[in-house]
């Protein structure tokens, strides 16, 4: 994922707190993806306006972790979502 790319959740894909299983999930067409703490933290920052670099910078500050590590940890996950069409990325 390019640092300047802007991720966005497309229509029909949304975060949902699953009370029964006590976990955050990403609800999407015909799928419910269970989110770990990093997945949830990243997707909560995705707003369709800020770039991937801005998101990882903000998370780095929030969790006092190196930005590069956060980018590394979340890139695979975001790419997988993108390939399932659960995440739009522009440009």
């Amino acid at each position, binding site marked *: 994922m390019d640092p300047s790319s802007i991720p966005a959740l497309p229509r029909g894909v949304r975060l949902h707190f*699953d009370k029964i299983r006590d976990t955050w999930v990403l609800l999407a*067409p015909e799928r419910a993806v269970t989110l770990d703490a990093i997945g949830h933290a990243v997707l909560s920052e995705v707003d369709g306006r800020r770039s991937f670099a801005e998101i990882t910078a903000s998370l780095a500050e929030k969790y006092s972790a190196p930005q590069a590590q956060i980018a590394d940890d979340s890139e695979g996950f975001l790419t997988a979502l993108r390939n399932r*069409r659960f995440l739009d990325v522009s440009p």
Partner: protein
Amino acid sequence: MTVPPIAMLAELTYRCPLSCPYCSNPIEMAQQDQELETATWADVFRQAADLGVLQLHLSGGEPASRRDLTELVHAARTAGLYTNLITSGIGLSQKRLAELDEAGLDHIQLSLQGTDAGMADMIGGYRGGFDRKMKVAGWIAEIGFPLTLNAVLHRKNLHQLPRAIEMAVEMGARRIEVATVQFHGWALQNRDALMPTKEQAKEATRIVAEARVALKGKLVIDYVPADYHSDYPKRCMGGWGTTGLNVAPDGLVLPCHAAQSIPHLEFESVRYRRLRDIWYDSAAFNAYRGTDWMADPCKSCERKTVDFGGCRCQAMALLGDANATDPVCVKSPHHGRLQDQAAAHASAEAELVYRSAPAKAP
């Protein structure tokens, strides 16, 4: 240990303007006056959410044949469920789609009987259906509903697969389900007309593999290969009583849509029992849960928690024994016979037997 279900298929009605010869609805269909009323469905949706269901599929028959569809969608969203409409498109107007949008409908799955009017209307048994469906697809795109195109394929239309994939892209669908007909319900009577040849099945697998590469990131392709020509059975419903449940139009709760074909199982209704109790405690849901019910070859097989022995309804339909290993499996003693049977069906010719409508109230 029994875990909560993730998905529920609500068969709102068996009514449908189409009469596809592979319809998964039972041969004996409940009468219209036995359909659950709006308030009961709304209550069932709340019970489902409390039980742990996340995804609700509104299906049928044709769910748009229910006048209260918009209310039902609203009730489902209010209950907190991700709400998917599985439709042929017939019965949806531009106005009705706008109302469904307003009510919060999350996603639409549109079925495709063929890629041109000649094929589609012949298979659906409904003249003008294809043209209407194309209009509906246009309105869906205008509103911006996320769309899955569901192409049901068999011997008569498998050659249209490449065009079906193109159409999904043209419609702006994010996903296409390429589903080779599964031989349950009405399809079982139509095997001589619909069974694909082994060559067709192979060709479809090749086309799907190529398209997946070419359309990566653009269109997701989910593929259900031809069952009888496979070596291992499907993990039906993600495992009996583990992932999902079906509610029939009259309120009977089923582990899968074909479960009523297993004669010794008794099903319970949401009219008389809570969904939670049916899921955890009913005999029908516990009958094939897990692996304890299995006999060999499944019992000692390393794949037993991969496919759970395949489809119980298929074992019933083909072998008369719902406890048997799905005969699709290479390890089943009946596998060879099934392959011969598949080849015989594939080279036979027969008229289509169309699904008939549910009986009207007397």
